[in-house]
């Protein structure tokens, strides 16, 4: 990333592209965006990575987190633009996800925290986090896919949230 920031190194960018493009594209498709739009959005995300590379600060966050937040913001934008809801001129999406300067976690601390949380959660709980918060599937959909009752999904997700609370501070 440093090579992109300092030398505008296109080869370095192509490596980031090769690794992340299929994963970002999959993220949009998992979030129920059709493939022609998902590719457009993937392009927008990686163009942002290239053009705004100076905004990335490795001390503040992992590259994957930075790229995830860009992709998420594009998703939010996309759904707002395509929703039936009429937005007034004073559209609020502009400033919803701005950089928060205060109290960002140092990367080392963040890594440690993720490691602890990863150790605490079992495979099924990790899958549920992914389905619920990354793919944004409804509890009903998760229940269908994992073939467990809806009530069980709800109580397990509540359990995960309670469990994570202990490690989030």
């Amino acid at each position, binding site marked *: 990333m440093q090579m992109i920031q300092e030398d505008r190194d296109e080869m370095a960018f192509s490596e980031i592209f090769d690794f992340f493009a299929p994963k970002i*594209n999959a993220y949009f498709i998992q979030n129920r965006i059709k493939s022609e739009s998902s*590719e457009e959005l993937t392009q*927008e995300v990686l163009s942002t990575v290239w053009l705004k590379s100076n905004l990335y600060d490795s001390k503040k966050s*992992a590259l994957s987190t*930075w790229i995830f937040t860009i992709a998420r913001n594009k998703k939010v934008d996309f759904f707002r633009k395509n929703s039936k809801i009429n937005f007034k001129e004073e559209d609020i999406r502009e400033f919803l996800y701005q950089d928060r300067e205060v109290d960002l976690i140092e990367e080392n601390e963040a890594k440690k925290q993720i490691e602890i949380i990863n150790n605490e959660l079992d495979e099924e709980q990790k899958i549920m*986090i992914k389905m619920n918060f990354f793919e944004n599937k409804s509890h009903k959909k998760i229940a269908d896919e994992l073939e467990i009752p809806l009530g069980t999904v709800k109580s397990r997700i509540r359990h995960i*949230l309670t469990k994570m609370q202990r490690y989030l501070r």
Partner: protein
Amino acid sequence: MNGTVVKNQLIFDFASGILGPAKSLFASTYLQINSNASRISTTFENILGENLINNENIHPKNLKYTDCINSNSENTKSITNAKDPVTSFFGNLDNLDWKQVYKGFKEYTATIDDKDELKLIKMDPGVSVPLHSHGGKEYILVLEGSFCDEYGDYSKGDIQINDQKIKHTPIASKDTGCVCLSITEKDVIFFGKYGSFLNLFTFIKSFFKPK
């Protein structure tokens, strides 16, 4: 579900990007003025970033890295708004057309197209709200000053989430009063042939809520 879990749920949903506009504005303000909430959100974004690294690959069919380098910058407009979300959305709070509900208690309802209602509430020092409960879930975030009720003290950056079961008597701080941002999940609205009649009934009923 305890209050902390509901707060985390709000933060996680915000980090996932699935909140409607009213709750998004509410949550982004919360993260802005509450450093603990901001840290939790960052941690959760890191977890979602990990999910991205480990995500499966679906290769884009018509996309090369050069397309990204040569793309025009129109789609990558950056967010340069440095003001806090509340000021950006509402402008200067002193200039708002506040509606006085009763003496010492004013509110301003945002015009925002969402199923949730977004409001600003201003209470003069020492003013209290009569004992009440709530139709839907209510989220309150303190922006300035503080208030207290039977459950505790709430100052800038603190959030209180109330559901139907909670009855309380909030009192604004004697020294500072308070300004809060609130979200109310709207009551059920009836549609169809008898809809208007049922809505009128709910409206009238709302004056006779259990005291």
